[in-house]
């Protein structure tokens, strides 16, 4: 069967059913279902310890699941692992480049391992280093690279073999805002080329800005799925914060915000917060508070943190975030 027939045979580039993976007493995946359409970006969103990386490792054939099945490009990740490996590129916290080699050597190494002849492997390395603004550092050992340069090289390394599917496991964790913006631009370029992307992230805005579909997971289970718009409508992707100048007005603010956002706002130390789906709400809130004669000391509409999304979806805070930080 040719690759195209296989893809035509299944509507999805990645199909996952009831995936279970345990490590000792810990259940990393407790029955996960996923489906990724060819050419789309799926954002796998969740806190540290939610099972995102475990899912990627199963799909990258690095570990075998305890139960359930997963198909990538129509091939089973356990029985047809070698075929799967020919379709994928992996970038992330667990797939790294060699510190002691130069940028060029790292990419040539992978090209050679993929069976590309030496001259072509070198040309491919040059092409990727150019595209990722690493030409100047091409001859330097990777250990001298900045965090952003390393991530770009990691990404380039996963592209040497022209993968049809790209796994990006927390590609921007630990990067500064500029590095993150640069990497987002690169990822958008890849998506425009038609590659299918599985992206894991702890950042709601990252999934929001890059993904076509989002799957939220927690404790190894899928707790929400949908397009960014659907999820935002469901959970309120933004958080409105209002602090009246006079604490006496808190009750009025709660009433106004509660009515407009259609939720019960939280009050903490004179600050009223509420999740809102529609940014258009802000001017209306301002007008209504003005009408009510409330003087506002602080007013903000910000992107909800993952913490707040979790609170909305599960009713419990994403405690792992606080415990483990962003080191893993």
């Amino acid at each position: 069967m040719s690759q195209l027939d296989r893809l035509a045979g299944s509507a999805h580039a990645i199909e996952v059913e009831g995936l279970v993976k345990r490590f000792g007493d810990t259940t990393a995946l407790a029955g996960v279902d996923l489906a990724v359409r060819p050419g789309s970006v799926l954002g796998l969103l969740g806190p540290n310890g939610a099972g995102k990386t475990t899912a990627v490792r199963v799909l990258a054939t690095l570990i075998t699941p305890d139960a359930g099945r997963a198909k990538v490009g129509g091939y089973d990740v356990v029985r047809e692992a070698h075929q799967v490996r020919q379709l994928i590129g992996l970038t992330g916290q667990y797939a790294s480049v060699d510190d002691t080699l130069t940028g060029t050597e790292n990419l040539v190494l992978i090209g050679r391992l993929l069976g590309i002849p030496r001259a072509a492997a070198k040309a491919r390395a040059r092409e990727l280093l150019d595209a990722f603004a690493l030409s100047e550092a091409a001859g330097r050992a990777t250990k001298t690279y900045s965090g952003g340069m390393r991530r770009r090289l990691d990404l380039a390394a996963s592209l040497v073999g022209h993968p049809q599917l790209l796994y990006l496991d927390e590609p921007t964790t630990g990067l500064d805002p500029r590095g993150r913006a640069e990497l987002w631009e690169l990822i958008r370029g890849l998506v425009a080329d038609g590659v299918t992307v599985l992206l894991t992230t702890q950042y709601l805005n990252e999934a929001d800005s890059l993904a076509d579909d989002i799957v939220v997971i927690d404790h190894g289970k899928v707790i929400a799925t949908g397009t960014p718009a659907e999820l935002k409508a469901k959970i309120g992707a933004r958080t409105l914060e209002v602090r009246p100048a006079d604490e006496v007005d808190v009750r009025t603010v709660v009433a106004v915000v509660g009515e407009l956002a259609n939720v019960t706002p939280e009050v903490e130390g004179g600050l009223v917060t509420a999740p809102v789906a529609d940014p258009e709400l802000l001017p209306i809130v301002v007008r209504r508070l003005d009408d009510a004669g409330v003087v506002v000391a602080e007013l903000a509409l910000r992107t909800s943190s993952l913490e707040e999304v979790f609170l909305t979806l599960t009713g419990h805070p994403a405690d792992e975030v606080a415990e483990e930080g962003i080191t893993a």
Partner: protein
Amino acid sequence: MTTISTTIAPPRPITPRVSPLEGLRQTMTLAWRTLVQVRHNPWELGDFSIQPIMFVLLFTYVFGGAIAGSTGAYLTFALPGIIVMNMLFVTMYVGTGLNTDLTKGVFDRLRSLPIARWAPLAGRISADLVKQAWSIFLLLGVGMILGFRIGTNMAALLAAIALILLFALSFSWVSVLVGVIAKDPEKVQIFGFTALFPVTFVSNVFVQTETMPGWLQPIVKANPVSILADAARGLMVGGPVATPVMQTLLWAALIAVVFAPLAVARFKRRV
């Protein structure tokens, strides 16, 4: 930044498995990678070049006169053993390198590629054999400059080198096991030194067994390092060959049979 025509090339034909020939080529590529690392880390080159030369110089000129009466006589006795000792220390690079790959995530990248599962390990061990050969020739060269002479013939010398490399191949499995178990590369080094120093010094590498206390002699005689050193001496300088060579081969087989399955089992558990 230029546009990235980085993905979606005409799809390559999907193959069901890696052919042994491809696996061999991948092994060579990974061995190349390990050797290129040395170029970027001259300290490692010093480790397996300067350190053994230091040993030769120290033992020949500081202890040689006291141990063997003259530095020339001592060099003839000690050099084959020093080559054996150095071989054991160099095998530790397999473990440290493997551990670095495992802890830094390089190994996961390699395993996500459509390459033979055994290629990364085989590549490390092949690269190690190149380092071993380099060390042996370096030590022989330095020894010759200082007055060491081959007492046998070329064929015997080549047999000695082959025997030492074969033992290195077998002992690499110990290094692989340590590399897989250890938490970080430094721990592999620490193990290497704490375990290998007593094993190499409680042998006949530096002094004749007969000069040691009676209770220690059986241990020294049973030590495979002594046996291999004897075999190397016999083949390079002259003397009994058959028995030590046979015993060396048995030891090499025994070490491989015990440690290769252990290392592979722990390896599969870790990755």
